[in-house]
């Protein structure tokens, strides 16, 4: 299970302020803490980043990789910021991951970046205007994205399909559609397609005390269907992945398994 440490997002006030002031301290502190908790990649979410997105993404990538030996997930809708970030990404610890392309024509060129910079790309299974109604519609969009990836020269092993997790508080039915989609996505290629979710969106808008509960149990269900990766808080998920591995016989049980 690949955890993509999610805490570096412009939506969080502390991170936003650090980004605005180019203050490396908080960014590196969070990156290190996610890495130590088990993250295998760090998400750098700079939002739409209209102004100075190129500089900001470069700064984020180099700031993070100066302290943690991990690849970065470049998370923005601004493709020139993505390109700038990819140029400085140090791939000795793994390929960067672009978040994301989709079935919206505006997002197609992102696949070009993937091919050009040998990056992995998240394929979000949504189109333009309107959400997929169920797992089947998500799978049909996935097929579309896969065909386009081949066309642009991005190998399918480098595509992570993202079924788009929605808020349980407003879109309850989608929770199970996403679970089913994770299973279907894998069946669409041999070797199975990789999958990823933005996990914490499940509990967006819910009371603070409920959020970790919803995130963790949902994560467990998705892992059971074979999820490859999750953009999530590594601290919150450490217990879950360790317990899952024990349950599934992937690691040997000991009373102190959680401390390992």
């Amino acid at each position, binding site marked *: 299970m690949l955890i993509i440490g999610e805490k570096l997002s412009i939506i969080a006030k502390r991170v936003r302020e650090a980004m605005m002031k180019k203050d490396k301290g908080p960014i590196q502190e969070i990156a290190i803490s996610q890495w130590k908790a088990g993250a295998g990649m760090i998400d750098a979410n700079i*939002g739409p980043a*209209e102004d100075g997105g190129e500089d900001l993404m470069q700064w984020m990538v180099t700031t993070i990789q100066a302290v943690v030996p991990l690849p970065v997930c470049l998370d923005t809708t601004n493709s020139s910021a993505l390109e700038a970030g990819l140029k400085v990404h140090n791939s000795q610890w793994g390929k960067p991951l672009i978040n994301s392309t989709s079935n919206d024509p505006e997002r197609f060129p992102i696949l070009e970046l993937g091919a050009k910079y040998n990056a992995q790309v998240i394929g979000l299974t949504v189109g*333009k205007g309107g959400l997929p109604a169920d797992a*089947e519609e998500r799978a*049909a969009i996935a097929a*579309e994205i*896969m*065909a386009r990836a081949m066309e642009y020269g991005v190998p399918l092993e480098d595509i992570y399909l993202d079924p788009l997790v929605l808020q349980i508080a407003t879109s309850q039915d989608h929770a199970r559609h996403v679970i089913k989609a994770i299973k279907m996505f894998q069946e669409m*290629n*041999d070797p199975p397609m990789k999958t990823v979710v933005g996990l914490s969106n499940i509990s967006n808008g819910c009371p603070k005390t409920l959020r970790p509960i919803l995130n963790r149990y949902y994560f467990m269900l998705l892992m059971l269907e074979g999820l490859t990766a999750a953009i999530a808080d590594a601290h919150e998920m450490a217990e879950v992945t360790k317990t899952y591995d024990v349950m599934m016989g992937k690691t040997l049980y000991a009373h102190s398994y959680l401390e390992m």
Partner: protein
Amino acid sequence: MALSGVEIFKLLPKTNCKKCGHPTCLAFAMKLAQRQATLDACPDVSDEAKRVLGEASAPPVRPITFGSGDKAVKMGEETVLFRHEKKFVNPCAFAVEVKDTLSESEITKKIEDVLASEIDRVGQKLRIDAIAITNASGDKGKFEAAAKLVSSKAPNTPVILSTTDTAAAEAAIKLFSGKRPILYGANSSNADAMANIAKTEKAILGVTAHGLEDLSNLTEKIKALGVEDMVIDAGSVKAKDILGNNTLIRRAATKKNFKPLGYPVINFVQRDDTLLELLVAGIAVTKYSSVIVLSSIEKWKNLVLFTLRQNIYTDPQVPMQVEQKIYNIGEPKPESPLMITTNFSLTYFIVSGEVENSKVPSRLAVMDCEGLSVLTAWAAGKFTATKIAQFITESGIEKDISHKELIIPGYVAILSGSIEDKLEGWKVTVGPREANGLPAFLKARAA
């Protein structure tokens, strides 16, 4: 039920040859399951698989095109009982009855009303879709004459010919050759002859019986006679029966894949009381009817029906959008506040409602963000400083107001500096995060 992607996959060659343009057979199967691809794209599929897929992929309610040309109406293809589950696919058609007992000038007037019924609503052209000529006279000649009048004055409008008299049907239907009319009136006593006419003329056959059991038997019989395209009527007249029978038909088709009732439904809702007729038609619109026959089509009534149909057939997954523009709430003066939000209709309804509650006359700039809510639109790069600045500049609002202050939703407070950079001379004020904070916010400013 239609086959799932995985079930379809089992019938494909499983060679992953990519000749269909998809990376794998399963990916292609997923597209087939959504009917976004057709089997011809696969050069290697077996005849056996074609046959099985052809049968199984037939949607639970048969797709039928009524009429021809630009005004043709698609019917059927429905898959669910409740609109929140998945979009209702093909909006129902409205038809007005023209009795053959009417005088030539009365019939002409009705035809003209149909032709003039088209209105534009939220970007769609809506109209009374069809004319139902009924053989109220019981006379073949009168029926044919009325049909002649309709075919000459409204040659492009889809037509329903309603008669149980096979001779009358035969005479009238010739006038609509190649135009895919509905021949309504096949029942247990005339089924063979009616089926024959429908088959020869390639018409859709309207089948009627008392109750669902008789109706099922009759459609099976007619299908065996070689007629594939039917619209069905269980003899429902009262609103209660329309609701009950239409529900049971839709359930049988979509839940049990019961083919004898897997056809679009036609309902006749004529009443002397035009307002009551409208409401019964409303029951038919909400409860699964595909063709609704009315006795009168006043303009106000059409507007109501078109709007209801549009509401019910909206895709629940596609956020409903309102038009991008600057809306006045109350009677704003040049100094009144200017706010901005996205064009997700629910956002708009709630924000404008709260502004109304505040009783502070205001302007609300509603920006096209593909119907996303504020935070989602921002994250998707659709509600950004550049786009907001461009919208405000291009709207020309500057000339109507005496200030240059824009109030933005609290959720995108982050944009305030950036908008100020891009909108020269403007001040950006951060409003409340939730709409229900607006009355207090606006009143405090006005005080």
